[in-house]
């Protein structure tokens, strides 16, 4: 069968971001922080003469109060997420949704992915779904991606039907533009957006599409898993995806308000995408931005644990921190873009709730973690209270071990990931949180950043 080569013109416009007056914002920040500082100073000046404690006693007292508050928040956060995830899993197990098989376009944006694109497309041909096509969008790759992808164009025998694979070659413009190009070309009512380096499990579409029977569901977030493992840093990331990201997503799925549809796998109703104004390229987390836009339009977002995308995680520390730096800044940019919902809950209460939880996870929680660890270092080095850090680690390790056990069992994951939970918080999360802290400072200072691209080594097909 012959392939047809056509010249096309793509609409490159995107949603106008809310207008920002940076000067006004800075003045407002200065006024608010100034007023709060003055209030704090007045409180200190009034209450300090009343205290009977010496300075060292005051330090210990303040530390204990802060620590108790931190522990309270930590336990509330942990148990809220675990219980909601548990409720979701129970509901998911009990409820029986009918099979729904409308036509779906799978959009695969690729940029310099010559090593993995064939593997990705082959995984898509094994999907257990009768009615779909694949649209590969080559975003101006500089390597052989175009050639490799073109070899895959045609009609391929899928598991249940023939699957059409098309390719769009466009000049480089970023992932958002590439996804928008694919969505423009697609004529389906539903699109699945993924990463060029991800592979999907065969049940993905079949399980994911069931949720769209509910006309209020605008999107379904999938379950991202780490494909390349067997190294400590990669195993820690695999545990993080299971314990940190997917458990939180299950909890959000219980409320049908997932706050980030992951880049490697998201299924969208095209009407919801249109309402949201498609992908925008003005943040570094286009997935978080789009999710918030969809939620703002009143659509529900479900989570489907059986819609699994296997992705290649960064194997080097430098690449990992680079990825997390970009995620953090992108999420902060997305939050700032939607801050009107943050300030005014009457506009869309669900969106306000989601945004406040994002602020907590992206800003408050990492800061608290960094300061708690710094405090333990200071009391150990200056006051010789070294045993405190052991009890701290022990308490946190038990919590992490419990949630790792729950998540690994719920997701039928590898049991060998569980022991990593003992070093997960003291090493991995602290490192990630410090990077988040740095990225947050840079974002508030408005320093420029570039997108960056992870080097893929390509993993053998599963």
């Amino acid at each position: 069968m012959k392939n047809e080569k056509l010249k096309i013109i793509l609409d490159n416009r995107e949603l106008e971001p809310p207008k920002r007056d940076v000067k006004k914002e800075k003045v407002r920040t200065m006024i608010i922080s100034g007023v709060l500082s003055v209030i704090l100073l007045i409180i200190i000046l009034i209450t300090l003469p009343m205290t009977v404690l010496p300075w060292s006693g005051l330090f210990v007292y303040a530390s204990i109060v802060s620590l108790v508050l931190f522990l309270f928040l930590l336990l509330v956060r942990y148990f809220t997420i675990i219980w909601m995830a548990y409720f979701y899993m129970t509901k998911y197990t009990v409820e029986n949704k009918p099979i729904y098989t409308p036509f779906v376009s799978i959009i695969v944006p690729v940029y310099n992915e010559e090593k993995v694109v064939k593997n990705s497309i082959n995984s898509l041909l094994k999907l257990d779904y009768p009615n779909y096509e694949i649209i590969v969008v080559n975003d101006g790759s500089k390597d052989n991606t175009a050639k490799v992808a073109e070899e895959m164009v045609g009609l391929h025998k899928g598991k249940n039907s023939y699957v059409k694979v098309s390719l769009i070659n466009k000049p480089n413009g970023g992932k958002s533009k590439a996804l928008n190009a694919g969505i423009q070309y697609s004529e389906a009512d539903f699109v699945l957006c993924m990463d060029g380096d991800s592979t999907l499990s065969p049940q993905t579409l079949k399980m994911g599409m069931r949720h769209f029977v509910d006309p209020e569901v605008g999107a379904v977030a999938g379950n991202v898993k780490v494909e390349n493992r067997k190294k400590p840093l990669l195993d820690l990331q695999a545990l993080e995806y299971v314990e940190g990201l997917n458990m939180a997503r299950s909890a959000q799925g219980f409320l049908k308000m997932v706050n980030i549809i992951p880049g490697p796998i998201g299924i969208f109703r095209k009407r919801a995408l249109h309402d949201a104004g498609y992908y925008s390229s003005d943040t570094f987390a286009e997935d978080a931005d789009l999710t918030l836009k969809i939620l703002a339009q009143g659509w529900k977002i479900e989570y489907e644990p059986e819609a699994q995308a296997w992705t290649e995680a960064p194997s080097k520390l430098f690449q990992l921190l680079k990825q997390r730096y970009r995620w953090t800044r992108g999420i902060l940019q997305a939050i700032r873009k939607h801050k009107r919902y943050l300030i005014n809950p009457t506009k869309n209460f669900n969106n306000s709730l989601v945004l406040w939880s994002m602020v907590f996870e992206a800003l408050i929680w990492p800061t608290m973690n960094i300061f708690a660890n710094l405090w333990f270092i200071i009391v150990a080095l200056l006051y010789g209270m070294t045993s405190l850090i052991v009890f701290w680690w022990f308490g946190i390790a038990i919590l992490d071990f419990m949630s790792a056990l729950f998540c690994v069992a719920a997701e039928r994951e590898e049991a060998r990931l569980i022991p990593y939970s003992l070093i997960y918080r003291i090493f991995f999360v602290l490192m990630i949180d410090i990077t988040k802290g740095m990225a947050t400072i840079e974002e508030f200072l408005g320093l420029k950043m570039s997108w960056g691209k992870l080097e893929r080594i390509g993993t053998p097909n599963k």
Partner: protein
Amino acid sequence: MELIPILSLIILVATISTFVLSVGAYVLYKIREKKGQAAEAPKPEAIPAELITPQVAGQTTRLTGTDLRRTYGDSEFRSTLGESAPMFRTGGASTRPEMRPTIVGSTMDEETFEPYRQPGKTTVNAERFSSTRGRFSRYTSAGYTEVEKKANTKDNEEPLKWR
């Protein structure tokens, strides 16, 4: 030897090392990033691209279920958007991105370009659209409008091809 002092030492050293490692990695990251700074790409309203797709006209209904495909009318979108309705960077008449790209011509050699012919039919250029309404519509400032059909146009003379 007591366990708690040993554990304390190990955890303390691990925590301090993690701090140092993270800050160091961040500084290295910033240094590397500065070397690779690139200028921001321009953002035109429309960009040319190339589409490579298998020629399956006439078979697409069976193969990919085009009977389920349709074009949205503006009325089909939510009317409750209000002030939060998307506003796009404009320049032309249309205020929203097109739902599908415009095909401006074939990049294949005309001699080798053989459109698929269904048995008993002369040409099948647009058979894949199954809607009973006008087959093509275009976004304008007034919403979707039907594209007028040209009378007696031969396929080889058609200046604009639509997908």
